[in-house]
């Protein structure tokens, strides 16, 4: 029996101070008594019906537990949803206890309401989380039977509750090797691992599984929470990334072009095999900023980063680490992504082989020209023989007949032709041997200017007006000044002769023009002299053809052509009989020989 004070306190104060809403209702559902906690929660209760106060209703609740308890005198515990004093929804657990008189009458019910709103909210939150998270969650018991599964898991695997997890996920009859859930149950610690499973649709999924033991107070894990994230897609993307990466890596590594890549700070990140070979950088040797500056054109990456477009240098020189100069074609590009600068790359094509091929081609062209001229050699020699034999004939018949004039003529013919022979031999030898041209940067216009200056007086004597001009700015070029001088001299001389041979009465004109268009340096020598018909045009370059009769060896034009060929250029002829001719020397700048190289062709 409790002490009197307590009993008194219980009967007098407990009701009021108990922190649970307690109300007593009569058979008419009027609230006859309620405690402070009730008033706090549900507000004013005097002379009001219970359904009014709990539920803000006008009528009895449809499944009124009070009515039932009045009926059968049973105690009931029910979860209820009501409206509190402030009009907010409130969840509570209601204990309905009937007061039963000895005669069985039930005049009143005592209702005790425990607020569970907060925990209800929490419960709902958990529920939401459990169901909605984008991963499969299963609650397993000690036998690894699925007790509860979230919606996602149910969607992927169907009805799983009650089944063993290894049966559902692996279609296996026993626990998997290294099962993390099992381990969590054993160790009481979270575990994780990879798992490959097949879902209800037969699709294979790759999962990352995390298992967390759930302990219930006594420290022994009774349940385990298994959370599985589908990483199939990210694994696939990872694979794709690997493949793409390897693809590009192989592409760069096997490229025949040298590739050097730097990051935004110009630190070297990529040096492919071709670059190592070109620049002579050993395997494993890295390239620092200073070395990079030494081998590539100065300021290249600054240029690349600042320019909008890619940088292209069709013909430039870079230096290997041992100082060797290498001709290359260089392309520099800026690497960026989404407006952000990632770095830069430069790719270089080694032109050494190209150069040597070009040199070979030039040589082949020269030999072909020599071959052609050998055919024309016969003509030249025959002419000389004619002269020699003719001279002898004149002399001998002259002597026999006592014709001194004839003897003199014969003697003169002999002499002249012997001189021609030696000159011919000398010219031809020098022609076929191959002159070494000395190439230096020179002013192309100066050659024209000088040649014209030399010939202008002689031209005037012959009644020919000799002029020259230059079209615009002509940049310096690698030329054998003397050689080109000889060429222009030859052409101008021929032009003047052509004018003299012309039958027209008016003053003739010869004009030399220097121009530079589309990367080709041009010299044109135009005359309005006698012109050449088809036959002559065919023969002009290929033989020792000379219209000069006595003096020329016929090698002038051929030598000119050879010198031009040694410069990588060509010479063209346009001519109309009676109107004049234009010889044009074309020197593509990208075929001009390198400076100071004595290109022995």
């Amino acid at each position, binding site marked *: 029996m409790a002490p009197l004070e307590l009993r008194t306190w219980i009967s007098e104060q407990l009701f009021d101070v108990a922190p649970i809403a307690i109300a007593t209702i009569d058979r008419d559902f009027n609230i006859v008594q309620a405690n402070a906690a009730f008033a706090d929660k549900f507000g004013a209760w005097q002379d009001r019906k219970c359904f009014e106060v709990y539920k803000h209703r006008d009528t009895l609740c449809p499944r009124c537990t009070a009515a039932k308890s009045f009926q059968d005198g049973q105690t009931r515990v029910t979860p209820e949803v009501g409206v509190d004093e402030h009009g907010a929804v409130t969840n509570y657990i209601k204990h309905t206890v009937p007061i039963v008189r000895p005669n069985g009458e039930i005049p009143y019910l005592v209702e005790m309401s425990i607020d569970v709103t907060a925990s209800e909210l929490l419960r709902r939150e958990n529920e939401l989380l459990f169901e909605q998270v984008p991963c499969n969650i299963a609650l397993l018991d000690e036998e690894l039977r699925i007790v509860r599964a979230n919606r996602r898991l149910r969607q992927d695997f169907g009805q799983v509750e009650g089944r063993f997890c290894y049966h559902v996920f692996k279609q296996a009859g026993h626990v998997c090797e290294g099962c993390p859930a099992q381990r969590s149950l054993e160790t009481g610690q979270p575990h994780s691992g990879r798992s490959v499973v097949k879902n209800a649709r037969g699709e294979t999924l790759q999962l990352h599984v995390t298992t967390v033991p759930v302990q219930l107070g006594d420290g022994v894990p009774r349940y385990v929470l298994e959370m599985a994230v589908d990483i199939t897609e990210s694994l696939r993307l990872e694979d794709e990334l690997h493949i793409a990466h390897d693809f590009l890596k192989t592409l760069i590594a096997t490229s025949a072009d040298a590739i050097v890549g730097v990051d935004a700070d110009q630190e070297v990140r990529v040096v492919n095999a071709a670059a190592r070979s070109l620049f002579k950088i050993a395997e494993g040797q890295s390239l620092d900023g200073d070395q990079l500056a030494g081998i590539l054109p100065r300021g290249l990456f600054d240029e690349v980063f600042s320019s909008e477009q890619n940088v292209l240098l069709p013909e430039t020189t870079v230096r290997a680490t041992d100082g060797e100069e290498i001709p290359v074609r260089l392309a520099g590009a800026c690497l960026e992504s989404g407006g952000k600068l990632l770095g830069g790359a430069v790719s270089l094509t080694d032109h050494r082989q190209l150069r040597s091929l070009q040199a070979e081609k030039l040589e082949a062209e020269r030999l072909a020209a020599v071959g052609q001229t050998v055919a024309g050699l*016969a003509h030249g020699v025959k002419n000389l*023989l004619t002269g020699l034999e003719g001279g002898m004939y*004149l002399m001998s018949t002259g002597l026999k007949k006592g014709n001194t004039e004839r003897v003199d003529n014969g003697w003169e013919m002999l002499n002249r032709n012997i001189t021609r022979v030696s000159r011919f031999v000398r010219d031809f030898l020098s022609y076929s041997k191959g002159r070494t041209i000395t190439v230096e940067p020179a002013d192309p216009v100066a050659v024209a200017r000088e040649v014209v200056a030399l010939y202008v007086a002689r031209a005037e004597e012959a009644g020919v007006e000799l002029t020259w001009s230059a079209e615009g700015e002509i940049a310096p070029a690698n030329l054998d000044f003397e050689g080109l001088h000889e060429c222009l001299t030859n052409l101008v001389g021929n032009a003047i002769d052509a004018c003299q*041979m012309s039958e027209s009465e008016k003053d003739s004109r010869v004009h030399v023009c220097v121009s530079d268009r589309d990367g080709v340096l041009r010299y044109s020598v135009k005359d309005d002299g006698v012109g050449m018909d088809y*036959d002559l045009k065919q023969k002009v370059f290929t033989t020792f053809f000379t*219209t000069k009769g006595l003096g020329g060896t016929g090698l002038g034009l051929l030598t000119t052509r050879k010198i031009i060929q040694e410069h990588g250029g060509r010479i063209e002829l346009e001519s109309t009989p009676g109107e004049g001719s234009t010889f044009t020397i074309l020197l593509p700048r990208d075929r001009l020989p390198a400076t100071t190289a004595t290109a022995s062709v």
Partner: protein
Amino acid sequence: MDSETPKLVLVVDDEPDVRMVIEAALEDAGFEVVTATNGHEAYNRIKERAPDFITLDLVMPKQSGALFYLKLCNNKTWCDIPVMIVSAHIHDELGEQDFRQLMKGQDAPRPTHFMEKPVRPDELVRVVCNTLGVAMDDATAAGARDEVYARLRVADLETLQKVRSVLDKEEG
């Protein structure tokens, strides 16, 4: 040489040496000679006085030999003048094509003769004489001697021996 007016030969060649030698040889044989340095000039010469024979070089500037020849053949008055092609280029790329074309006789009657340079003056004169039905001037000893010398130069041993025996007979 008979008492007719000397026959006229037109020598067309751009090489002065060639013209000089052929002219000398022909004159020695009693022909009258005019020369021309190209087809154009040659035509002018013909207009002045039609020659009895023409020697023609093929490769020349200002109207090549072949063109001149074609022009000649198409001229009614002069198409019958005998023409000898004298060229250094018969076998080389320069003149070969023209020469072969000419010798085909498609565009014009074939030239009467051709001779390859270097020309042997005596040979040339012989051909001209034969064509025109003129006996070579062998009345003078000098002419005969020239001819004999020339032939002896290329005679074989057998011929030489025969000649020696003839001379022996004469002397003896």
